[in-house]
């Protein structure tokens, strides 16, 4: 479950206008962006970061046809083999009457499946914790986390980010995966943070 502790250079930007060129330059320099945390959805940031299109739609389609198949096989088995009933003199295999249920099960499977997949992909679940690189990422700062390797010169990266327009940089070791439990005991309250 744990993704292991890794070292990151964290840079904060206070404007979309500086964030976009910074993302571009950081990628050009060959640094690996772990993620960018923003207080609100930023249009086009996923393209700038070079994240591939999500496959959530494909998953949704697969869940949908699973729903269709489930509904059709189950209803047809029940009404033709297991417990055939005479309903209004209709044939036992009464396809038109099943279409609404089939449709609903298609939508239900697709919707529930996609929500669960989305939560899994975003590491969202009750009691599950994720590391916060900067508390103001939920307020007014765009926070970029760059993953360090053995060869990374931290000071150089920090300098580079400062020159790219970062208002604040820091080095942080963090758990990359998600875990169940409490946040680190060292976690400070928001009002104790610098810049509050």
């Amino acid at each position, binding site marked *: 479950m744990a993704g292991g502790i890794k070292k990151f250079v964290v840079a904060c930007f206070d404007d979309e206008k500086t964030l976009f060129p910074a993302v571009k330059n950081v990628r050009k320099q060959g640094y690996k962006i772990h993620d960018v945390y923003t207080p609100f959805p930023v*249009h086009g940031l996923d393209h700038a970061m070079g994240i591939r299109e999500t496959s959530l739609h494909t998953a949704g389609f697969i869940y949908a046809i699973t729903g269709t198949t489930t509904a059709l096989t189950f209803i047809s088995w029940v009404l033709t083999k297991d417990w055939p009933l005479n309903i209004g003199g209709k044939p036992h295999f009464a396809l*038109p*009457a099943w*279409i609404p249920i089939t449709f609903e099960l298609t939508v239900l499977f697709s919707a529930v499946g996609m929500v669960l997949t989305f939560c899994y992909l975003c590491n969202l679940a009750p009691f599950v914790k994720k590391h916060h690189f900067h508390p103001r990422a939920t307020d007014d700062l765009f926070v970029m986390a760059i993953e360090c390797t053995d060869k990374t010169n931290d000071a150089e990266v920090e300098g580079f980010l400062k020159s790219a327009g970062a208002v604040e940089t820091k080095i942080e070791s963090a758990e990359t995966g998600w875990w169940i439990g409490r946040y680190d005991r060292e976690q400070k309250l928001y009002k104790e943070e610098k810049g509050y």
Partner: protein
Amino acid sequence: MNHQFELPGSYKKWTYGLIIAGAVALLYGLIFLHPFSAPAHHSAAAGHDGHADVGGTRFWAVLLQNSVFWLLVVNASMFFLCVTTMAMGGWQIALRRVPEAISSVVPILGIINFAVLVALVALHRTDIYHWLDTDLYEKSSPLFDKILDGKKGFLNPTFFLVWSALSILGWWLLGKKMRSISLKSDQDGPMDYESGKKWIWKNTVWASLYCVVFTLTVASTIPWLWLMSIDAHWYSTMYSWYTFASTFVSGMSLIAIFVVYLKNKGQLEYVTEEHLHDVGKFMFAFSVFWTYLWFSQYMLIWYSNQPEETKYFVERIGTAEKAGPYKGIFFLNLILNFICPLLILMKRGAKRNWTLLTVMAVLIIFGHWVDLYQMVMPGTLHENAQMSFFEFGVPCLFIGIIMWGAGKYLSSHSLTAKNHPFLKESMIHHT
């Protein structure tokens, strides 16, 4: 901005080629199908007599099918414009001259359609509209029909023609007003905040007026009068929406074809695949919407199983014992207009692919033309309907006229509504 678009020679060649082909088909019909001889009697045409002359019926049925279909398709363009205007839509501005151009054909097709309707009434074509038969309303006559007598207030020649004329006139004049508001903005120069606000207000008010007229006609009475009254005893509350969905999705497809064509010719500089994607979404969504109505109509009638209602479907697909003459077309309709758009247009990439979307647009228009075919033919020609030279020739005439009218508009006005206040929103649009 852009220099004036000149119609390429190939466009004109196709336009005149199609018009000539259609005219030849029409001429063939006029000479060999005897449209002006008295209709074969209803029961005789449907009966066992193989020699019954159904040529005239075929002529008028094909003309009715095509004139109604193509008129409603080009009219759907104006509805698209008005409805997006009312919704304060911005994305479509980069391509809005295309639906404007298509809707400029409404007057021509409206006149043709009205001429066909007048001819049907004047020639007393009871083979097309059974309710035109005056004997049905004579209490003393053996043909007296209690049901049709009850519908007489609505289904009578006077109301039929007056309401048809008013409807066509409404689409024509309000559409013309919408186009003139748009064209006037080209000459008036860029708008500031205040004048832009005024212009948007005026445009929205006229658009909403058009939508009211559209609702009272295409979305309700017109399909009842023009198409549903072929099967005068039968009725369906889904019918008008069904016809609307059919022609609207074809209208969106026609817009897509023109957009792709103009883009290929290096026009419509602000239209990107983002806009194409949205047009594609309309084609996809309304194909599904059409299916929803198609199925609702079918399932309710199938479920309640009342003879006077199932008659409509028995005429088409037949019964378990005996397949009807339209069984193939009936299910082809569903494959062309539901299965294909659903599976092919579902993916995002497909809606952003210029070639694939064009192919799908052609398929959808053909599919809904077939849909109208199976709405008109069973009640008029019964098992005598054909799908041959004449049936494919007449639509050529209508397509040619649409190309001619739309081409004329496109080549005489700027292809971008350059002073529209929402143009910038359309330029930066992305989905």
